[in-house]
């Protein structure tokens, strides 16, 4: 089977990419391993989605449903659900497995990776102590509660202040769980400010920054967690150790782009994002393979995911038709205070290009600067910048020289 564009993953990124490619007249196939489209949004029953994209506040499933409806009505898009992609080659042969269609192989003119991300686990952070039940990643607990309709415990502690953990603090409180404490290793939250306010402060759930769990206790079921303040070296200070009794621990300690599928096919990766290195069109180092959404870098807002994926889907369509062209490449470099940027390459030309980035710490009263060829091409004063909120700047492509450097001053 041949399609102009094959999209791997049917979350918000995959759906937006597929729609954008179809709009350009392409035949598109979408593979989604779950029973339905929507990705992680299907379990995010809280609202706060779509403020930018639809200019109204939707729940996750509502946001997803709007896209899913459009995908269903797009004549040029074929969707395989319950179809897990097993492999993709640099030549863009995509193989998927489904209970209904069996083994499916398609050749594609361009491929968009939109596999989302997964959560870091207790093992990944080397959580010490016993290994009882009652320890869940926040997203797994979210699924068990919101989708499967169960409860997971009575008294909870949350490690990490990622958005899912914050959302779950509120969600569990609604479910009658006592959320006793949130612990965050860093001196700042990795989640959105609005979630700290709406999910913790509003419910008087305490959060301790610069603290971590030192060990967990409990034979069958979790019974207690020990925690301590961390020093400059981010290692716990034993003399500050305290404990709190709980039967549930949620881990919200980071998301990792789900890139196992492209392991070993020669796509250049960025160790800072754990996603592929990508250019302005979200094209990876392997021509014809594009990436968008959480598989490329972890986003906080689905609106940004949709926007990024439309860009990638549209460029993938151009690539498939052989009309993707661009000006001279200009590398995007990180300067003081900037952790990473996406994209990592932009092109000279006309019009504007958005560059997304995160800072490497909390900064107050800084000027955000972008320079190219020794000249300032963007400058803006900011009261506060935190790693938990992805930033975006708009660059005039005609001003680009050999490279573009972002930094805080």
């Amino acid at each position, binding site marked *: 089977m041949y399609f102009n564009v094959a999209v791997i993953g049917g979350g918000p990124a995959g759906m937006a990419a597929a729609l954008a490619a179809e709009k350009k007249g392409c035949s598109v196939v979408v593979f989604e391993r779950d029973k339905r489209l929507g990705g992680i949004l299907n379990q995010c029953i809280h609202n706060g989605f779509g403020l930018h994209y639809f200019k109204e506040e939707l729940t996750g499933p509502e946001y997803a449903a709007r896209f899913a409806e459009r995908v269903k009505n797009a004549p040029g898009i074929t969707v395989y659900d319950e179809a897990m992609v097993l492999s993709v080659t640099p030549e863009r042969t995509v193989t998927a497995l489904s*209970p209904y269609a*069996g083994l499916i192989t398609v050749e594609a003119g361009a491929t968009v990776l939109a596999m989302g991300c997964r959560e870091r686990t207790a093992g990944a952070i080397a959580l010490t*102590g016993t290994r009882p039940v009652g320890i869940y990643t926040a997203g797994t607990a979210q699924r*068990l509660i919101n989708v499967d309709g169960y409860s997971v415990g009575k008294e909870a502690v949350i490690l990490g202040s990622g958005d899912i953990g914050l959302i779950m603090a509120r969600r569990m409180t609604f479910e009658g769980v006592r959320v006793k404490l949130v612990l965050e290793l860093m001196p700042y939250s990795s989640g959105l400010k609005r979630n700290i306010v709406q999910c913790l402060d509003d419910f008087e759930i305490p959060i301790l920054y610069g603290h971590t769990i030192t060990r967990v*206790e409990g034979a069958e079921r979790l019974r207690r967690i020990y925690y301590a303040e961390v020093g400059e070296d981010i290692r716990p200070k034993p003399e500050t150790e305290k404990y709190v009794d709980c039967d549930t621990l949620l881990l919200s300690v980071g998301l990792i782009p789900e890139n196992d599928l492209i392991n070993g096919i020669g796509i250049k990766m960025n160790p800072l994002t754990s996603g592929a290195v990508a250019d302005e069109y979200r094209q990876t180092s392997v021509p014809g393979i594009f990436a968008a959404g959480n598989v490329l870098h972890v986003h906080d807002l689905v609106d940004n995911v949709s926007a990024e994926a439309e860009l990638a889907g549209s460029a993938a369509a151009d690539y498939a038709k052989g009309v993707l062209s661009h000006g001279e490449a200009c590398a995007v470099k990180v300067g003081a205070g900037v952790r990473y940027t996406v994209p990592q390459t932009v092109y000279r030309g006309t019009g504007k290009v958005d560059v997304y980035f995160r800072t490497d710490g909390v900064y107050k009263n800084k000027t955000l600067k972008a320079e190219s060829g020794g000249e300032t091409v963007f400058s803006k004063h900011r009261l506060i910048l935190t790693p938990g909120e992805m930033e975006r700047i708009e660059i005039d492509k005609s001003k680009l020289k050999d490279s573009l450097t972002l930094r805080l001053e």
Partner: protein
Amino acid sequence: MEKYDVIIIGGGVVGAAVIDRLAKYELRCLLLEAGSDVAYGSSRANSGIIHAGYDAETGTLKARFNREGNRALWNIARELDVPHIKTGSLVVGTAEQLPMLQKLKARGDLNGVVTEIIGRAEILKKERNVADGIEYALYAQEAGVISPYKLTIGYADRAVTNGAVIKLNSAVTAVFGRRGNFRVHCADGAQYAADTVVNAAGAGAAEINRIAGAEPLTVTYQKGEYYVLDQTERKNISTIIFPLPNEFGKGILAAPTADGNVIYGPTAEPTVNGDTSVDAGGLDKIKKQLAVTYKTPDYRKSIRLYAGLRTICGMDFVIEQSKLKDGFSYLAGICSPGLTSAPAIAEYVVNELVAPFKALVPKKNCVTVMPKHKRLKELTAAEIKERVRADEAWGRVICRCESVTEAEIVAAIRSPLSAVTVDAVKRRVRAGMGRCQGGFCMPRVLEILARETGVPETEITKCGKGTEIVFPRG
């Protein structure tokens, strides 16, 4: 009361190997295991090394059973379809440590184990990532790795296939009577009668001897902590890298696992029975000691920590006929190399401890080779297509990290020793063993277990009573 010829207490690799062997004879055999699955004690948490056998003191049971076990295990692993790899092993040392390596080699010679001492150039051909100061190594080609819990499960499945009975969640609380007339009580109130009893309760063996009125045993416990690394680390290591053994044991190793991960460990910390927690201090020791032998440990690729419990009863394995209790035998202190030795221990137990009481009449039509369960990853495209056509569950991938389909999970639930907990499924088919540690698939596995066993999801456990995963709302 159900009556048996032989009751075995404890379903670790030793108990399972014993019942597998006994099931080949016209005997009614029962194995009682306290846990919710076999391999609930040290047999599930160890290094999984098939030791070559140069290490044990010459003339001990350890030396004998290690050598014999090693010879038997490769074939048994094939019969039982247990993942294993003959990787060979290296005990590595600096130039100054050469005499100690030579001493180790001499012991290997006495134990009848083939080894050779090789220099750095040869080492690098076998293992390019040994640490810089390493100049010599003792190479043992007969060493390898095996999945220890799959071996135990494999033995148990074959024993059940051949007519033996295995009861899980059956902690033995009392043993009354004597030869020809034993009564064994379990915590759940069940009672069983038997002519002979074999105590293979591992960490619980001393307690079983005590309640049965057999010889008192003095045991100590030691835990061994590990890191498990992502499969992406497998490319960095091809053999087992040991440091020189010291008074605490074989030291911190780096090794591939038979399933394609990598482990670093174990520590050797004195502790109490039941403690398999992992301490930050232990992890620091691993980091420090491994740096001496292995150049490229990557702790960021950790996907899991675990610890196993060694039960030590003197210097050697203790495998005895009770003199105080006629018809009762016991095994104690089966620590390393107990996994490797299991086939030989089982043969010894059957011939020396059971045969004096029971005539061993071979059963007809015994199953020797168990059906091979291919994983999705091992199937060709044509095979996958054929399977999905016959059963759509072969097309439904449940565990993303390990590519495990619904069909494989259902097969594990329907296997001879049925998997009825999330952990039991995980050990049999690896759903949840990967880098996301069940984050995605655990809810689906719960669903399939509930559907297949008819038990509500709220009563499905991770690993036995008290480990329920979800609760009814409200």
